[in-house]
Each structure stands twice: as structure tokens, then as C-alpha cells.
């Protein structure tokens, strides 16, 4: 099958669409939306064909490399991991594009919007396709800048412009760590090759990197007195990048603000693409993480903590989109946790995490698009002003319920009945249990369970406040047009059934990536480099309670939400008050804005360092000016020497003669 010869078209077509839309879009109806839609459709078809082909023939991994510059290359790598990502990204992006045709129809410059989203899609697809870490970084950054452009799409709104900047800068902090990781990796490989790299070998290619994991692991760096293996260092730095991109604590602060962009952008960024890039990065370089158990531990803890941390804030937000934003952060935490447990279960972790990633992409895109649909219709995203929207927008409400069920992870353990989120999230939580069982680190599991409860609580709170009951204000509104509801419905189907249908095959398919193909060391050897052994998965069975636990807490969460927001048996005003310190803390988002933005960036960097810098700069200027003034003043005072009286001149001459005699004597003595 020749479809692999067209794999390079997957990112290229949207990129081309970007150029065409950018220059021609204004002249076409609806901002030239048709161009990216067609391009992405083709990308999706190719991706799907490749995925199907890989499913049938797992060994037919596509890997093509071309020299780029110096000893670096560009190339494409489509293995199962990449293939599923490609398919998901192109599909979700396609649906969002179609949805946007309606959503953006009233905007001033839809062509710019479609151009930017096309570029965004292209970058994301390019990221997934990369066969080397540098190209991945390139696309990673492009994704970042596209998100900057899209979040700041309504740039005349100061808040949008600020949010865009914040998003870019915060992720940039992670990017720098990522880049540092790449640089250290490069230099290690460079040294391993002794500085002479044979032609045709591209040292930053993943297969090349993985082949040298033992060598890299053998290198140690001394950081503040601690001996750290380079492999741990590099993977931690990579994870630093992932923290930024995937909104993990503490670099998640940009994500809620990113809601300033059009809702479709939020869907694109928070559901399918940008935020998953971090997870993908860790998954992509998972063999390295396997060899660095300390890093995996960090991944697990950060993931679990982020999951609960974000969820707590999700329950107090009143802004529809913000709740979803925190939900995204929280779910990304789950994905990270899923990867982190790899220290216990090996390559399967990639499968589990990716599965949740894909499912989350569908239901989160759906949630955002539903929210967008509501906002589009009623013109506000403050939930306190909504209520009873279900009556006005039945389709939107129905799809929203489907998405919420998926997010909450409702399903019956042990069967194939359940929403997508059920299968993937449960798997993660169960594996977290296993992780605790194997390594003795129970905290991630505990956090993930509580987070599951909170997840259910905030999403049903959202449902009740928005769709249930009576309108709190007179907002009018109507059901959205077909171009919007059709994608919603398709996504709803995915959100409900994708997990159930694929849960058996998906995991093996994706995990295959690192089990047999592609990496010349098998996963157990890698683990032994890291100094530990993977648990044998086969004979292990979790207690029944553990299997049911996620569902139970989800239902508890629903119940609480129903009691408070559905039946209103608890007076909200007593809880939601300025006097409640917990509420205050949560509502103010743990004061992180104050801490990060105001204190850290503004006060410390801007005022502190910049002030110091200016002072030093003035110092330099002062030195230069002082020298020049000194010279000028010396000139001025030496001039006085020339009195104009001729007798003085004679005196000077005569004194000069005498002094010269003495000076010569002295100098000659000295020498």
C-alpha cells in the first residue's frame, strides 16, 4: 500500500492551506474556510489509512529522513503512537473547522482565523510526525506561537492580548527546559560519537537517541553536589517542557486565561492539540523515561497533584469556559499520571495514557464546542446568568450531557459498557493503584481518586447551573445552526462509544510501539538501566473495591452536585461567601496569579533585574562619560597653564630644562 508515501502530506497540506487562506481568504466566502477544511480532510484520510494499515501490519512503521542542516535532519516517523495521534488531531481539528464556519461567521476577519488554525493544525501534525527531537521542538514552538496568535485573536481586546502573551511566556519557560534537555542530549550524543558523526547518521533521531540510552545513562552530571545521571536530567528537562505545554502545576497558569480566545480555539488548544503535546512528548521519549525511574516518579506525582489541584479550582469557577479549562488541566494531570506509572507497568503506560488523551480529546472538544454553542447563542459565559438552557438548545444540551458523562467516567467496571472517559480514566486510576502497590508510593493513587470525585462534582455543577432549572436572566437565544450541531453530534458519538469500542485493541496497538518495534533494547533492559524491574502485569488483580472505586466517587460527586445545584437543598450563599476561607482561596485560584504574575514576573524580573540592569548600564555609561569628561576637564585646566605672559613661558622652559636633567637621572637610575 502506497499511502505511506503520502505521509508527508499530512502536515504539509494544512500548512499550504495556511498560506492560501492567509493570502486569498479575504476574497473567498466565509474567509476561505473551505481551503483548510479540504486540506485537513485529506490529512485525516491519509492518517486514517495509515493507522488502519498499521493496525493490520504493525511492522510497517514509516520512517523517512532527509538532511536539514549541519548534522540535523527532518523526517517523518509514523508508528502506532504517532498514527493514533495523527488521526485524532486531524479528526478533531476537522470537526472544529467545520464548526467554526458557523461560529466565526460574524467575525471581522474569519480568513485570519482559518489561516491561523490551519497553521496550528499543521504544526501539531508536524509535531506528531517528527522523527527527531529537534523537529519536534520546532513544531512544538510553532504550536506555541499559533496558540499565541489564536488566544490573542481578538487582539484589540487588551485582556486577550495579555492572555496571549501570558500563555506564550509561561509555556516558554517550559520550552527553555525542553531546549536545554535537547542541548544536553545533543552534546552527550556528540561526545558519544567523539565529535565525528558519519554521514547519514542523524544523532537527534529518536531511534538514534534510544539506541544510546545506556551510554547517556552512564554519564553523570554534578548539580549542586548531587550526582545525577544525564538520562534523568534530560528526561526531567523534557518533562519540564511538557509541564509548560500541558499545563501541569506550576506552569498551568496560562491555561485558564487562554479562554480569551474564541471558544473554538479553546476547543482546539485544550482538547485535541497543544495541551496534549506535552503528554505526547513524554510518550514519544518514553524509553528514556523508563530508563530514568526518578523522572517517572516526578511525572506521576506532578500529574496526580495537578489533577486534584486543578479540580479544586474547577468547582468554584462561575465562568463556563474556565471550569472547562481547569477540567482540562486536571485531565492532563491524569494523563501524566498514566505515563508516570510506567515505572510499574512499562510501555503499557503509554497506551493507557494515550487512550485517555484520545478520549479526552473527543469529550473535551465536545464540551468546549457545546459551551461555544451556548455562548454563541446567549452571548455570555457566566453560569450565574444562565440556567435552563436545555429548553432552548436541546441538541447542545444532550451532547453536553454525553460529554459530561464521559468526563466523569461513568461506566460499569468489568464490562464493555461505559463512556470513553470511563475506560481510560479507570485504567489510569487502577494503574496508579498498581503503582502504589509496586513502589509503595500511594499518594498519586489517593490524589487521583479524590480528583475523580471533584471532577464529577464540577462538571455536574456546570450542567445543573447552565442547563437545568429556570433562566436566571433574560438571555433569549436559539439552537445553533447545523454546521455547529453536526460536529457536536459526531463528537458526542465518539465521546460515548469510542472508548468502549476500542479499549481492547488500542492499548496493545499503541504499546506495541515500544515493545517490539523501533527500540533495539526491550523495555525490561531499559528498566534495568534505571536500576529496577517492571512488575509482571499478567497475574496481578486489583481488589474489586479498587475497580469500582472510580465509579463510586463519580456518583458521589454527581449526587453532591445534584443536591446543591439541582435540588438546591443547601444554601449556596453560606458557602459562596467572602468569609469562607476555603472558598476564598479556591476562588482566587490559590492566589497563584498574585504569586506568579504579579510578584514573580513583574516585581522580581521586571523591577528587580531590570533595575539592576539599568543600574549597571548607567554604570557603564558613567564610566565612559566620566572618562570623556575627565579628559575634557583636564584639557580645560591644563589650558590655564598657558598664561599668555612671556616671562612665565621662559620660566617654564627653564624649569623644564632643570626638571629634565633630574628626571633623566632618576629614570636612568631606576632602569
Amino acid at each position, binding site marked *: 500500500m502506497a499511502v505511506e508515501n503520502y505521509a508527508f502530506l499530512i502536515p504539509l497540506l494544512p500548512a499550504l492551506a495556511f498560506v492560501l487562506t492567509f493570502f486569498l481568504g479575504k476574497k473567498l466566502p466565509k474567509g476561505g474556510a473551505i481551503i483548510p477544511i479540504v486540506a485537513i480532510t485529506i490529512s485525516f484520510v491519509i492518517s486514517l489509512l495509515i493507522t488502519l494499515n498499521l493496525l493490520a501490519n504493525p511492522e510497517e512503521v514509516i520512517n523517512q529522513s532527509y538532511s*536539514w*542542516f*549541519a*548534522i540535523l535532519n527532518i523526517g517523518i516517523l509514523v508508528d502506532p503512537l504517532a498514527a493514533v495521534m495523527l488521526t485524532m488531531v486531524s479528526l478533531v481539528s476537522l470537526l472544529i473547522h467545520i464548526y467554526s464556519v458557523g461560529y466565526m461567521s460574524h467575525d471581522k476577519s474569519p480568513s485570519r482565523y482559518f489561516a491561523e488554525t490551519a497553521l496550528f493544525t499543521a504544526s501539531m501534525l508536524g509535531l506528531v510526525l517528527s522523527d527527531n527531537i*529537534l523537529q519536534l*521542538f*520546532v*513544531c*512544538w*514552538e*510553532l504550536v506555541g*506561537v499559533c496558540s*499565541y*496568535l489564536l488566544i*490573542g485573536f481578538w*487582539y*484589540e*481586546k*487588551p485582556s*486577550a*492580548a*495579555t492572555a*496571549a*502573551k501570558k500563555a*506564550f*511566556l509561561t509555556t*516558554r*519557560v517550559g*520550552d*527553555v527546559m525542553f*531546549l*536545554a534537555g*535537547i*542541548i*544536553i542530549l*545533543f*552534546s552527550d550524543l*556528540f*561526545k558519544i560519537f567523539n*565529535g565525528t558523526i558519519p554521514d547519514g547518521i542523524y544523532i537527534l533521531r529518536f531511534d538514534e537517541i534510544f539506541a544510546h540510552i545506556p551510554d547517556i545513562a552512564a554519564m553523570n552530571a554534578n548539580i549542586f553536589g548531587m550526582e545525577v545521571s544525564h538520562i534523568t536530567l534530560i528526561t526531567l528537562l523534557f518533562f519540564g517542557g511538557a509541564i509548560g505545554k500541558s499545563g501541569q502545576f506550576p506552569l498551568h497558569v496560562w491555561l485558564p486565561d487562554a479562554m480569551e480566545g474564541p471558544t473554538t480555539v479553546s476547543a482546539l488548544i485544550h482538547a485535541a492539540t497543544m495541551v496534549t503535546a506535552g503528554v505526547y512528548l513524554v510518550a514519544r521519549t518514553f524509553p528514556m523515561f523508563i530508563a530514568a525511574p526518578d523522572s517517572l516518579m516526578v511525572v506521576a506525582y506532578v500529574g496526580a497533584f495537578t489533577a486534584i489541584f486543578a479540580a479544586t479550582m474547577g468547582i468554584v469557577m462561575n465562568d463556563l469556559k474556565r471550569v472547562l479549562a481547569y477540567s482540562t488541566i486536571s485531565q492532563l494531570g491524569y494523563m501524566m499520571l498514566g505515563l508516570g506509572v510506567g515505572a510499574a507497568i512499562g510501555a503499557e503506560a503509554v497506551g493507557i495514557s494515550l487512550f485517555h488523551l484520545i478520549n479526552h480529546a473527543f469529550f473535551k472538544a465536545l464540551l468546549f464546542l457545546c459551551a461555544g454553542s451556548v455562548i454563541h447563542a446567549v452571548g455570555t459565559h457566566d453560569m450565574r446568568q444562565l440556567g435552563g438552557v436545555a429548553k432552548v438548545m436541546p441538541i447542545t444540551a444532550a451532547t453536553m450531557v454525553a460529554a459530561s458523562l464521559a468526563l466523569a467516567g461513568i461506566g460499569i467496571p468489568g464490562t464493555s459498557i461505559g463512556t470513553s472517559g470511563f475506560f481510560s480514566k479507570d485504567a489510569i486510576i487502577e494503574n496508579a493503584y498498581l503503582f502504589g502497590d509496586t513502589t509503595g508510593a500511594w499518594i498519586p493513587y489517593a490524589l487521583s481518586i479524590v480528583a475523580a470525585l471533584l471532577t464529577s462534582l464540577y462538571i455536574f455543577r456546570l450542567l445543573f447551573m447552565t442547563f437545568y432549572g429556570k433562566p436566571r436572566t433574560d438571555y433569549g437565544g436559539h439552537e445553533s445552526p447545523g454546521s455547529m450541531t453536526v460536529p457536536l453530534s459526531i463528537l458526542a458519538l465518539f465521546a460515548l462509544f469510542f472508548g468502549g469500542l476500542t479499549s481492547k485493541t488500542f492499548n496493545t496497538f499503541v504499546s506495541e510501539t515500544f515493545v517490539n518495534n523501533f527500540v533495539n533494547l526491550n523495555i525490561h533492559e531499559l528498566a534495568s538501566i534505571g536500576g529496577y524491574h517492571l512488575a509482571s502485569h499478567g497475574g496481578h488483580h486489583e481488589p474489586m473495591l479498587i475497580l469500582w472505586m472510580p465509579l463510586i466517587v463519580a456518583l458521589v460527586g454527581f449526587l453532591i452536585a445534584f443536591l446543591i445545584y439541582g435540588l438546591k437543598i443547601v444554601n449556596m450563599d453560606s458557602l459562596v461567601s467572602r468569609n469562607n476561607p476555603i472558598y476564598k482561596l479556591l476562588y482566587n485560584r490559590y492566589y497563584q496569579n498574585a504569586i506568579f504574575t504579579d510578584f514573580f*514576573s513583574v516585581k522580581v*524580573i*521586571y523591577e528587580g*533585574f*531590570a*533595575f*539592576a*540592569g*539599568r543600574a*549597571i*548600564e548607567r554604570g*557603564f*555609561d558613567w564610566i*565612559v562619560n566620566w572618562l*570623556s569628561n575627565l579628559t575634557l576637564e583636564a584639557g580645560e585646566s591644563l589650558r590655564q597653564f598657558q598664561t599668555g605672559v612671556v616671562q612665565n613661558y621662559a620660566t617654564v622652559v627653564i624649569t623644564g630644562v632643570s626638571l629634565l636633567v633630574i628626571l633623566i637621572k632618576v629614570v636612568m637610575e631606576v632602569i
Partner: protein
Amino acid sequence: MAPILSMIVLIPLIFAALALLTKTKEQARAIALTGTVIVLLLTVYMYFNFDSTIAANQFEELVEWVPSLGITYHLGVDGIAMPLILLNAIVLPLLVLFTWNDDRKSPNKFYALILATEGAVIGVFTALDFFLFYIFWELTLIPLFFMVSIWGGPNKHHASIKFFIYTHVASLVMLLGIFGLYFAAWDMTGTPTLDIPTLISQFQFIESGIAKDLIFLALLFGFIVKIPSFPFHSWLPDAYTEAPTAGSVLFVMLKIGGYGLFKVMLPMLPFTASPNMMISIMAVLGSVSILYGAFLALSQKDLKRMVAYSSVSHMGYVTLGAAGLVSLSVSGAMFQQFSHGLIMSVMFMSCGIINNATGTRIINDLGGLAQKMPKLAVIMVLIFMASLGLPGLSGFIAEVSVLAGSFVNLPVYVMIALLAIVITAAYHLWALQRAMFGVYNERLGTVTDISTYQTFSMGVIAILVLYFGLNPSPVLDMMLTNSEHIISLMAAMGV
């Protein structure tokens, strides 16, 4: 073979003289455009006949000049010089177009100075004799000095004199180094010569270690002031800021400091008495420049001044990469020169346009310009992204090569430089956000978007930035050839 190098050096100078004789703006700019386009055509011809697989000097011309002092008229280009000549040849015609419709006093002098600078700068890149090299080196000062003094901003006198004297001191110190080298070689071989390749190859035979170090440091000082590197950069913000837009662009074209670093310093480096100390000096200066320039840029209120400091920061990569002593880092540093030239010219053009349109460059006084100047906004976003090192644009290639390459030998310094990346992003975005986005500041009055000429010249450069970001090979290959050559020399010495 036609003396093509003499032609590309002399044609701008001759056209400069012609431009000086013109009376009107129309004549002057036509002459300037003709001259620069001829140079561009010749350079392109030369580029396509250039063998990028060898590190040797090509298109050499050699004529005796002052034999009793060993002075020759010796020109030639190698892979270090070729891209920089190309940079000048490309940007200068566009600069002329950019200023096409400007109204200013004495346009004849203005265009004459632009042409003279081009000739002098290309002269530095082609000279293979230190005497000639120094002549062109100093010759670059004069037109720029006039440029700032005549058409500069309110503080032009201070800025021009400061720039003139400051860099002149540096040149003189460099001259001392040249003298040392010249006579050391003369003593050893018995024949005077100022031929650059010969002198460089003689450097290793100098017996006195102190003499070698002093010569090296003197030359290094001359070059890094021109780059400029922390802490010798203080002429730059004033000069760049006070210069008219064209002057700032010409300053940016002045890549002679970095050129000297690669052409003269690196081949000599392994033979100094204490190469490790020299490497450390360069590495410290480079990495501190990157960080320091970024912080200073962050604290600026004036857009152009911010860009000027960002230039200090970016040029730090050149020094750092040169000190990295890995072919990737060295070629990356060379590429940084090339890329920085392209990016900064558009940055300064943008500053100029904003200043002309609104009458202010204070970032906080601007706002929402993107609504009134959409074309400018697109170009500016692209070029700001390039400047902050966005992949896919030329700045990234350079920076990542420098950082990755240098890390092999200089991990700590690279880590310092990495700290600057976020700050770099911060000030770029801050400026973009405050100046271009947000609510339009009505006090700025009515502004119109950039003219066709301006769009063309900025657009072409922006496209080149993109092109070289995606496909750096056309210039990077020859840089790599040369840097590999340099590194192989060092490897042979066991450094």
C-alpha cells in the same frame, strides 16, 4: 576573469561619489538603487560560482601595493565572508527602496553615505591584507558617523561622537595587535607582509607566549567592541537609537566584528599561550551579553532602544558560538550574523515606520496599531517571532546551533544563555502587545499603513528570514565547510 571582488567593493564607492553630485532626491535614489542592484547582481553571480565545499579563499585578486612594507592589494572571499557579502548585497537595495519616498534634507549625501557604507563593509569582508582590512574597517566608521550626525535623533551629536570615538579606540587597539603580528612575523621570516592568511599561519611560530596573548587580546578587543559584546556595548544603544532608520539598518549590516572573530581569531586561538583562558573570556562575554542585553531590552521604554539592546543580546550568540569551538556552534554563530542582519533590519524599519507614523517610539504611548496598520502588524509579528528565536525562522537555526554546539565544551555558559530565552520572549511580546495590540490609542491621530515600497522591502526580507529558517543550507553549508576547516586545524593541534 574579471576582478569581480574589486568591482563589488568599488562600484558602491563610485556610485557614492556619483550620488553626491546629484541635485535631487529622484536622481540620488535612482543612482543608489542602480549601484546597489549592480552589486546584488554581481554578488548573486559570485554566489552561484562559489564552491561551498572548500574552505579556501576564492575569486582572489593580488596586486603589490607598498612592497617595502609588504602591503598588498589582496582580495578574496571564503565561506565566512560570502554570506555576509550576500547579506549586504540583498539588504542594501531593499533599504534604498524602503527610503524611496522619504523626504529628508540633502538626499544626495544620504544615498552617498549608504553606498559608501556598503562599499566599506564589503571591503572588510573581502580584504585579505591587514592594511586593506583596516582601511575598510575604519572607512565604515565615517559614513555612519555622518549618518547619525546629520539625520539622527535629538541626541545625535552625543551619540555620533560617542560611537565614533569609542569604536575608533577599539580599532586602534586592534591595530596595535595587527602591528604586533606584523612585526613578529617580519622578524621571523625576514620579509614584511600584511597578508592575513600568511600572518595567521605565522602566529603559531611566535616564541613569546605573552606576545601571543597580547596580540590575540588586542585583536579580540577590536572585534568584540564592534560586535558589540558586554561590557563594551555602551556605544550601541545610543548610536542605534539616534541613527535614522537607514542608519540603524546600516549599523546592523556592520557585521565586521563577528567576521573578524571567525576569520582572524579562531584560527589563532589554539596557538595562544593560554587558549583555555581565551575561550573562557569569549564564552563569558558571549553568555553575559545574551543575558544582560535581554534584561536591558526588557527594561526599555523606547521601542528602538529595546531593539538595540536585543541586538546586544543576539550578538552574544556570535561570541558564544565562536567560543564553543564545535563546527556546529561556530557555523551557527556565523549564521547568527547573517540571520541577525536580516531580522534586525526589518526590526529597525518597523521602528522607523512607527516613529514616522505616530511621532513616538515610547512603547506605552502606542497601542492598537495593528488595527490601523495591518500589513505592518503581520510583518512585525513575523519578525518579532524570528527575533525571539521561533523555530522555522532563521534566528532559531542560529541559536539552536550555537547553544547545542557550545554545550559540548561550555555547558555552564550555555545554561546562562538559556536563562535569557524567556526574557527575550518576554520583551518581544510585551512590546508587540503594547504597541500593536489592544485598544487603539486615539491620541496618536490618524496613521496610515506602510507604503508599497516599504511593504516590498520588508516583505522580501521577512520572506528570506522564513526561507533561511526552513532551509538554511544555501548559506550554512559554506559556513560549515569553513568552521569544520577551523576545527580540524585545532584538532590537528590537539586543542
